């Protein structure tokens, strides 16, 4: 799975949780979930669960703690998917 595909999957997950005044175009790799995308912090929990289901991986508490931006999430996903394959 290429990086672009992973980003698109992640973007589709995130867009459900965006406030009404933000469009899907606001989601770029550098976006901060809470500060820029204005996602309710309670929903970060749901985004993590959706990511786990979509990529068949499991995120740990420390992964969640350092998942501040979309890039952070992509990085974690890449590592977990890689670990699964090896």
């Amino acid at each position, binding site marked *: 799975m290429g990086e672009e595909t992973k980003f698109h999957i992640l973007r589709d997950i995130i867009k*459900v*949780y965006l406030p*009404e005044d933000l469009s899907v175009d606001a989601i770029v790799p550098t976006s901060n979930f809470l500060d820029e995308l204005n996602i309710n912090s*309670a*929903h970060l*929990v*749901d985004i993590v*669960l959706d990511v786990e289901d979509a990529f068949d991986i499991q995120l740990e508490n420390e992964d969640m703690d350092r998942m501040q931006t979309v890039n952070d999430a992509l990085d974690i996903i890449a590592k977990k998917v890689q670990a699964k394959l090896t």
Partner: protein
Amino acid sequence: MNRRVVITGLGVCAPNGVGLFDFTNALRDGKSGIRFQSKLEELDFGCQVAAEPLVKDNILNNYFTPLQQRGLNATGIVYGVIAGVDAWLDAGLDKNTTNEPRWEHGVLFGTGILGVDKFRESIHLVDDKQVRRLGSTTVLQTMASGISAYLGGILGCGNQVTTNSSACTTGTEGVLMAYERIAAGKADIMLTGSCSDSGPYVWGGFDAMRVLPRTYNKTPSKASRPMSASAKGFVPGSGAGAMVLESMESAEKRGARIYAEVLGGEINCGGQRGEGSMTAPNCVAVQRCISNAIKNAGITSNDIDVINGHLTATSKDAVEIGNWSAALERKGFDFPYINSFKGTIGHCLAAAGSIECVGTVLQFKEGMIFGNVNCEDVHPEILDVISETRIPHKSMPLHPKIIAKASFGFGDVNACVIFKEFQ
């Protein structure tokens, strides 16, 4: 301060009709919302009929965002939000789209138990050591006040937003609690109502108590028989009813349509003393509740044209009629007209009071008393007290001036509210 309080909006999600139009027609025509439930058959319930609203998936988008619908597994919240938002819009109010809460608007929306299916889902995850997978809405969907929290957020209310709970009295109690808050000048507008979840996990306990009918599984529309000699227990139900209560002053200022006035009423408890218990009413308390309601409303018992009873279709119906008769000091042909909607909607438990209050108030608008079904064989002990002419079998035209509505519940709790036509 004792301000006058009127009803300016109604909403309902009932087993025999979702929305005011369908519900009104169903009550007028005696259309049943009681159906055979294959799920209850699979689970070996004694009673395999129940009354639940038929909510089409495509209407959910009118009430919930796609995000709110994700993982939503609490039927009570679905019913309550439909009824609550409908009542709000029916009152000519809009959802608050500003960042400022509406400080004079509140929500008082009750339930017995909420999000039972969501809770079951969670229990399985927890037991499987998957607590981390519960998601962010498990708490919101299973806390009792979830329903008032959802509605308060959708509407943007800044006054009291809370949930009351008093078993099958909940909805009627809520009308009186909202009335009191407005009358006392603490709020201008209160959305009040109640909801009850569907499903075997809610209804099972009643089946175990053997208070549900077991001989009508093949004839569901005959199963609920208030005031009938062949009543065999109440049919479990679910749904939600809602009304917007408003100070007369606020309603007139807005030019709102007024369905009726709430004159007041009474809430009390039999203390589970005397003949009262956790499940049986103390008749002294029931009569006291009714007579105090009349006193508090500033009317006399002769002013009451119509009663909408609690009348669940158990052997206690005759006791209830006796209590009304004693409290009103009226009997025979002099007794008011009386009806029970439970013949078509079953006993919607925590939602019963609110759905039935909505139906009760609709009678003012329709100029009609909705008929009773399944009591062609009125219980002889009822006929010892009142004339059969007081129990309309079919809906009949009549412009009631004052209607009394009572609900009673486990815990020996009682509520009686007095509605008056508005001219």
